[in-house]
């Protein structure tokens, strides 16, 4: 199941968050058949996380935060199913994808699949929050960012809830 909430984070909020992430620094991840992207070294943002948890609770059911990750993707970056299969919690859970980007690229969608058929996409929509029910068999990949994104950057926050 997918619920997409638009305009949850304003342009200013997103810009402030990106500045905070840049200040904390980024770690590059490069394992060719799994992923090529960066994660921020920043910690939790308690006020934001509480707000997002409330949104998730209203969309689904009472949940608790289990994990989070700040992500940055540029041209040439990707994340494949193989990485998701190793990284994801094995049990069913809820995932929040929060788009912190400055602008839409028209690319960079997240693709959810059962390993064969594509089931749905999460578009790269700045300010949006996608709430996804993830049963164990639902896998995700982040499409490769090709030259069409030019010098744009995609920033995302991913929350794992259960």
């Amino acid at each position, binding site marked *: 199941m997918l619920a997409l909430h638009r305009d949850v984070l304003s342009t200013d909020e997103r810009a402030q968050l990106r500045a905070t992430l840049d200040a904390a620094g980024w770690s590059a991840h*490069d394992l*060719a058949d799994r992923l090529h992207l960066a994660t921020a070294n920043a910690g939790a943002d308690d006020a934001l996380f509480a707000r997002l948890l409330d949104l998730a609770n209203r969309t689904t059911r009472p949940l608790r935060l289990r994990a989070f990750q700040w992500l940055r993707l540029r041209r040439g970056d*990707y994340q494949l199913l193989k990485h998701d299969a190793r990284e994801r919690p094995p049990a069913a859970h809820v995932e929040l994808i929060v788009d912190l980007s400055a602008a839409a690229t028209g690319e960079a969608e997240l693709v959810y699949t059962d390993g064969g058929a594509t089931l749905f996409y999460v578009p790269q929509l700045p300010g949006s929050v996608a709430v996804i029910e993830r049963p164990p068999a639902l896998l995700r990949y982040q499409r*490769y960012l*090709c*030259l*069409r994104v030019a010098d744009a950057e995609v920033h995302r926050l991913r929350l794992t809830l259960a």
Partner: protein
Amino acid sequence: MIDPSGWDLPSLTDRWRSATPFGHVAIDDLVARAALDELRQGVSKEPHWPNRGEIFEMMASGPPQQPTPRAFLEALGGPAVRDALAAITGYRLQRVDGNSYVYLAGSYLLPHTDHRPGVDRRIAYVYYLSPEGAFTGGELDLYRCTTDGSGDIVATEIAATLAPRPNRLLLFDVGLTTLHQVREVTGGARISLAGWFY
């Protein structure tokens, strides 16, 4: 169309065996100039469909229908070429398959191995059709993989980059850790025939 009698088998064998990070070799000037022109015309008449998935974006044909690409695959999978490749690689090969591919700007094939359990792919090949200077990008990268005790890949680095020259046949080994990618094409059209020997 393909005559391996002129191939320098000892040299090709040595290059395959000494290649890193895994067995690979390039055979240049594979077909005569006139045959290359006919192949280009034949492939240009094949329908190519948008093909987009987890690790790729390009245009792909189905099994070739035009006479010249079909003749190419028949020659590639014929006994003379298979015998020569057996000498080079040590693999006894039964057959070959292949499709044609068009990579336009923004097309790519991300790092992966062609190994599939239960599918006896022994050698992967790419044959480049585009004229010199017809595109930018599209090189083939081969990765050196570090594995842990269980065989999981825990580190990767590009160990060889092979240029996509016209009329060049690239052959490379298929195994659990033979990771390779086609770099994103940044302009023009990279046209190739590619598939596997079984």
